[in-house]
């Protein structure tokens, strides 16, 4: 059952990404390119996905367990650290250069040509490398006093 609903969720996610235009790298770059010929379509995609999920999170908060009996995901402590900021900047840069983020890259794997396959292989390599990059980043950051530990405002807890 878990695997069936995971499969259905993945399929629905992929279908949504395709219909929304998230697998079209030119469109994605047009949205990220705020200083060029800006294309607002993807704001509707994000909005369309976030709005129902606001209600769903409210429903989820009332439950201890999911419908299949596993615990609901816990909140991460609201701490903004260097890895979150640096990682997001790097991810965004890669997203801007190629126009693919992880979901659409996987969703378009079968029809995205050799470029799409090369992108996914490189992404997987980057994921595999990350555990060994972490200690290096920590060492580099130790000398700096760029402590990015922020406490969350009340509304975000």
């Amino acid at each position, binding site marked *: 059952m878990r695997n069936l609903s995971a499969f259905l969720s993945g399929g629905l996610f992929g279908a949504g990404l395709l219909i929304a235009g998230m697998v079209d790298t030119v469109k994605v770059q047009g949205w990220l390119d705020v200083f060029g010929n800006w294309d607002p379509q993807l704001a509707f995609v994000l909005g*369309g996905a976030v709005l129902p999920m606001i209600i769903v999170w409210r429903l989820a908060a009332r439950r201890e367990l999911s419908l299949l009996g596993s615990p609901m995901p816990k909140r991460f402590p609201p701490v903004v650290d260097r890895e979150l900021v640096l990682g997001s900047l790097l991810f965004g840069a890669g997203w801007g250069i190629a126009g693919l983020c992880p979901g659409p890259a996987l969703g378009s794997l079968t029809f995205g040509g050799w470029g799409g396959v090369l992108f996914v292989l490189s992404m997987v390599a980057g994921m595999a*490398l990350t555990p060994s990059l972490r200690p290096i980043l920590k060492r580099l950051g130790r000398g700096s006093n760029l402590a990015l530990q922020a406490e969350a405002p009340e509304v975000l807890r």
Partner: protein
Amino acid sequence: MEQDWIWGLVGGLMIGAAAALYLLVNGRIMGASGILGGLVDGSGRNSARERGAFLLGLVVVPPMLVPLYRQVDTHITTNGWLIVAAGLLVGVGTRLANGCTSGHGVCGISRFSLRGVVATVFYLLGGGIALVIGRHLLGVV
């Protein structure tokens, strides 16, 4: 095209429904980079089958819709070096930040998570900077 925003909204609602299904039924956050990354580095070994099933759906369902839909070309660049660099950046960045557009963006923002909101601000900033430099200054992207 004129009606593109409607397709964006419809697709977005489907993405939200997929995230709702994964959360309410499986009790998990639908984040593409986390689901894949946990398999790549072994941190998600205990839920490997569930992750595999999600990824299988994500990979095999979109091509079934391609014949019904005008969009079949991803228009990805033909510059292999750019693709490799971008793929590495996305792989490393999403694992360091512990999330991407789906986990931090869709699931994080809707939960009013500080980390999700901050991550989204910085990856949009990273994307904007990449296009300013790569497209408007260097003309390679």
